[in-house]
């Protein structure tokens, strides 16, 4: 029996290959330099490091995206579409030790246009649909958020705090800070609109539209409108919502960002977005969009009870070729455990004893 996370990995792989994404396999180690230069891009900035035999400082990879970008082509007109299924090593806040986490995801890097962006967001929605019947994809746009923050007149420090407040839907502290910095009432209202309006795309867009004045703000909203229309046409209309708390680091993310939730899990299982600014920082001209699915989280949904063995055969007195024959027979119809002593904590349906070439039923729990 495959577990839910294993099933998901297979289904996702099939989906991505159907859209022409090729598998990206990477080594377990990467030069530490790559991560130290882009620390804020990582989910946690703690990395397991060690020196290899030639004295180079290496790291157990905490992330896959950076390695893919490093090796992606940076040529006009070219796009690389890849997916991966890799273990990464991370520390989560509140935990003191590293964990090995299975992560599946895809990246589309290169000379991107509207099509590629829509395709990746659509694949994110399809990924969620493969994992669960009850899911939601929250969509936001960093271009819109950063334009609003920039036009608000907040100080650099204020912009950073405001971005945090948006992510936690904290309008009381956002408002207090804006008042402290002497921000115009109209601008405060605009920023608060990013918290107040969330949910069904059409109503959010209609509420936001009259508030936006600047060209960049309107362009970003239009991009969002188009994207939502596409998703709606593909049948995901009631599965998407606009939510500007799906923010991400302004230093790296530039366009659409999104987060996927499935019922029963306390945190987002899918996270992604367009991160052109990271590529620019790494000295590249191309654009990129991608997402990761934290398939390890599916373990939480697994039924914790152990399914009982169909048969347990107790035997004594050394090896006997006949016993193999008998166990083979049992294995054909179900599960069988051949053992000298009754195992603890292992439920079973029928218990047999093997003696002198014969099995006898001694307990039937089925």
């Amino acid at each position, binding site marked *: 029996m495959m577990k839910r996370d294993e099933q998901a990995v297979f289904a996702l792989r099939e989906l991505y290959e159907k859209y022409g994404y090729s598998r990206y396999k990477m080594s377990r180690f990467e030069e530490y330099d790559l991560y130290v230069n882009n620390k804020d891009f990582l989910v946690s900035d703690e990395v397991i490091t060690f020196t290899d035999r030639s004295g180079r400082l290496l790291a157990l990879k905490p992330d896959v995206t950076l390695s893919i970008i490093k090796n992606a082509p940076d040529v006009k007109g070219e796009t690389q579409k890849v997916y991966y299924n890799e273990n990464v090593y991370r520390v989560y*806040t509140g935990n003191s030790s590293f964990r090995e986490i299975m992560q599946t995801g895809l990246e589309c890097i290169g000379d991107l246009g509207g099509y590629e962006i829509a395709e990746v967001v659509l694949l994110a929605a399809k990924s969620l649909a493969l994992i669960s019947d009850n899911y939601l994809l*929250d969509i936001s746009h960093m271009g819109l958020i950063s334009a609003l923050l920039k036009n608000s007149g907040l100080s650099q420090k204020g912009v950073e705090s405001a971005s945090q407040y948006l992510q936690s*839907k*904290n309008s009381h*502290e956002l408002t207090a800070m804006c008042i402290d910095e002497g921000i115009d009432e109209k601008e405060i209202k605009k920023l608060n609109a990013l918290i107040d309006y969330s949910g069904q795309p059409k109503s959010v867009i209609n509420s936001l539209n009259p508030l936006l004045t600047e060209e960049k703000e309107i362009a970003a909203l239009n991009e969002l409108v188009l994207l939502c229309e596409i998703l709606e046409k593909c049948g995901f209309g009631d599965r998407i919502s606009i939510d500007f708390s799906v923010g991400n680091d302004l230093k790296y993310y530039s366009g659409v960002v999104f987060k996927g*939730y499935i019922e029963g899990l*306390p*945190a*987002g299982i899918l996270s992604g977005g367009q991160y052109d600014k990271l590529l620019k920082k790494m000295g590249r001209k191309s654009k990129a969009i991608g997402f990761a699915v934290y398939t390890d989280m599916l373990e939480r949904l697994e039924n914790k009870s152990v399914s009982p063995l169909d048969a347990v055969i107790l035997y004594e007195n050394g090896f006997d070729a006949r016993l193999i024959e008998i166990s083979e027979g049992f294995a054909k119809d179900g599960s069988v455990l051949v053992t000298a002593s009754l195992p603890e904590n292992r439920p079973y349906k029928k218990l047999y004893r093997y003696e002198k070439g014969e099995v006898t039923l001694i307990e039937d729990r089925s």
Partner: protein
Amino acid sequence: MKTVVNVALPKGRLGEKVYNMFKAAGYECPAIEEVNRKLVFENEEKSIRYFWVKPSDVAIYVERGAADIGVAGKDILLEYRPDVYELLDLNMGKCRMAVAAKQDFADSRESTLRVATKFPYIAQCFYDKKCRDIDIINLNGSIELAPLLGLSDVIVDIVETGSTLKANGLVVVEDIVPISARLIANKAGYKFKNGLIRNIVEKMAEQVEK
């Protein structure tokens, strides 16, 4: 199965005040007012279920989805930085996070400052911004004792009225941040129980004393 919103309330005086606020907002639960040993209290008709937890644990229950919403002090949110929505300032349980020291204390930058606290992260961030080299002494209670016995130079702690400080000859040297109780929500719970939670937030907002 009917959808129910799980609410983690902080045990103690503040929690009782918070429950009364929920009650006034129309989310009463008669079972919670009876004297009994139950841990979980539900009002099916109002689609709400309450449970009491240690105040510092509320954020954990909410972040991990055992509770959809909860009420936690800003001090806890700043210290543990849970990934949750902070939807409302309830404007109660008001106090401040401050640096306090003995009356004759004068900070000299010549030596490392020894700071006793229950909030190492908040203290570290505060002094990092000042580029001040500090030695954090992690205590779990009776923080005021530390400077009196020479264990630390200053303390970083919650100050409500300042009477404990005063009785021990300590004074507030600097304020760090104002603290009050906040209504927080699990991010996934907020998506799947959106209508119910939004209603609660709206009605609770009406109860907040300005």
